[in-house]
């Protein structure tokens, strides 16, 4: 035992404390703190291997004489004992950080704030770039917990370790493969990856975050736009700021760095990782960063993507396009392009600012890259009037009272293409009949979700509305048509809805796929 000259009295404990030496240990501690009992006392337990209940009683008595007591550098075994006995609740107990080496370990991910290595078959460690990362680690742990509680499947770190001069957080990730790895090693899995990648994105963006729990992405993007004013022609700079300012506050979650290295397949489960950039905001902010990950970063030098993701530029571009289409719920090229252009405005703004701040203007290639992004951005700003967009698909509780929402959602998309009032009414009638049918029967007596998708396709101009639910399998097209020639007295009240739908629409198709009723309505609107 020795004592260091510090504001707090620091006492180093080593070896074992049990019934054979507890009394002697206690005596010695009391000697050392004599006269300073009410000052802070720190017990450094770096070399303490074991503590029995006799030893715990010593600490308990010490806590009574010296209320400001803390234990530091506690090894995992001793920590477990302290935790089990409730000592961790009574006083400040700080674990000793395990030392982990990542030498020769496979790098499985790299984000803005750190690099992820696989340290053994079951575990990975995220090593933070910032040497003083304890606050960052704490932040990431908190937001990951929040995400998990809100229903987003993610991994939460269970340990903090030292890696050289930095800190790392350790996660359990068994047999997991990132989507980047799947895409580069199994091109035949492309469609599956797109589907899962888009599904997760929809899930994130439909998650409402309680106020104040996550930073607001809009504030950050406004500051980027303000930075850009000095680097763009005046009109472009003003337009950019106005467009960003016009984006309304949105309390839905965005990941902030959503790309295929941050999505892992663990056994059959898809997990989102690298949660430190979690925020709230309009989905266009997310799409902007996604555009950069797949396309923007490598737009000048197509080789960049391979180093980062493991697949080539063409694959990245195709994946981005296909994911965007799946996310929006449309194959309509014009709509996809339109939303992509909005995303590019956010994306280029971020890329140019980032490059300038990293002194890219000092090299030829840096200047050329910035010039390319800048000319695209100026072009896009001139032809864009809003950064807002709506997806072509909504998911909603299948309840009759939600009918007006479904109808106005469909109407909004029909208005986008321009459509006669008569056809609009016919489509609404069909949509009402199908939605009400799901609301009344699919989940009865429970309540479940229905998804509605509206797609427009050209040549001939037609609209396809798809209803999906996870309720009881039911094929409404099999319903017998009512006899419309009967008199009022003989007519049954009911059965008309499906019949009208079939009459009004050009095509009504039913499928039952993967536990889902899928009803597709098609109508020529040219």
């Amino acid at each position: 035992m020795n004592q260091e000259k510090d504001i707090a009295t620091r006492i180093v404990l080593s070896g074992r404390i049990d019934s054979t030496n507890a009394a002697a240990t206690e005596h010695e501690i009391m000697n050392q703190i004599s006269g300073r009992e009410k000052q802070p006392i720190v017990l450094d337990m770096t070399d303490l291997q074991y503590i029995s209940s006799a030893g715990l009683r010593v600490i308990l008595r010490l806590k009574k004489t010296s209320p400001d007591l803390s234990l530091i550098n506690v090894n995992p075994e001793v920590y477990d004992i302290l935790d089990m006995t409730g000592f961790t609740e009574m006083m400040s107990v700080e674990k000793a950080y395990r030392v982990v080496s990542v030498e020769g370990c496979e790098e499985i991910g790299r984000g803005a704030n750190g690099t992820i290595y696989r340290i053994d078959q079951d575990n990975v460690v995220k090593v933070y770039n910032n040497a003083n990362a304890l606050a960052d680690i704490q932040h990431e742990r908190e937001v990951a917990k929040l995400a998990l509680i809100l229903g987003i499947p993610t991994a939460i770190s269970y340990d903090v370790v030292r890696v050289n001069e930095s800190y790392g957080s350790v996660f359990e990730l068994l047999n997991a493969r990132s989507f980047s790895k799947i895409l580069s090693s199994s091109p035949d899995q492309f469609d599956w990856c797109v589907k899962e990648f888009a599904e997760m994105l929809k899930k994130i963006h439909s998650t409402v975050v309680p106020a104040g729990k996550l930073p607001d992405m809009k504030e950050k993007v406004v500051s980027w736009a303000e930075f850009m004013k000095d680097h763009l022609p005046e009109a472009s700079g003003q337009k950019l700021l106005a467009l960003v300012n016009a984006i309304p506050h949105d309390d839905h979650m965005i990941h902030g760095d959503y790309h295929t290295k941050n999505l892992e397949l663990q056994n059959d489960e898809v997990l989102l990782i690298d949660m430190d950039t979690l925020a709230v905001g309009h989905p266009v902010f997310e799409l902007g960063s996604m555009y950069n990950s797949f396309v923007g970063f490598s737009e000048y030098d197509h080789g960049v993507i391979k180093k980062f993701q493991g697949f080539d530029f063409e694959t990245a571009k195709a994946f981005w396009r296909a994911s965007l289409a799946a996310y929006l719920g449309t194959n309509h090229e014009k709509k996809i392009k339109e939303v992509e252009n909005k995303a590019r405005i956010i994306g280029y703004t971020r890329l140019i600012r980032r490059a300038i701040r990293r002194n890219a203007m000092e090299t030829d290639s840096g200047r050329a890259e910035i010039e390319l992004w800048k000319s695209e951005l100026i072009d896009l700003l001139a032809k864009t009037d809003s950064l807002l967009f709506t997806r072509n698909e909504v998911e909603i509780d299948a309840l009759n009272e939600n009918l007006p929402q479904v109808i106005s959602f469909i109407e909004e998309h029909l208005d986008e293409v321009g459509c006669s009032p008569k056809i609009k009414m016919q489509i609404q009638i069909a949509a009402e009949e199908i939605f009400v049918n799901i609301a009344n029967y699919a989940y009865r007596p429970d309540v479940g979700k229905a998804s509605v998708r509206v797609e427009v396709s050209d040549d001939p101009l037609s609209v396809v509305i798809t209803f999906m639910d996870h309720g009881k399998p039911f094929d409404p097209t099999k319903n017998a048509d009512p006899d419309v020639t009967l008199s009022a007295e003989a007519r049954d009240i009911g059965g008309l809805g499906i019949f009208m739908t079939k009459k009004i629409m050009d095509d009504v198709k039913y499928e039952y796929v993967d536990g889902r009723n899928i009803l597709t309505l098609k109508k020529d609107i040219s």
Partner: protein
Amino acid sequence: MLNIEITPNDNALLVSLGGRLDTTTAPDLEKRLSTDLEGVTSLTFDLENLDYISSAGLRVLLSAQKQMNQQGEMKVLHVGETIMEIFEVTGFTDILTIE
């Protein structure tokens, strides 16, 4: 939104509808008729301002027609082109008296 305006005149009743007669609004009309039709021998629906009708609305018209067949007569006025088409498709042009 459905606008329902009911004008009684002795044993006659004029029901003017405006807006949308659909799943969410049809129950309102049904409720009004269930009390107001008592003793009525001549029922008239004016659909001039009706923009939209779905099968839920058709069902209310059908049951009103059934009831009026027992106690008098019913007619429907000012049916617009798009709603007329719905009546045609469903055979309601043969059931209702449309003027």
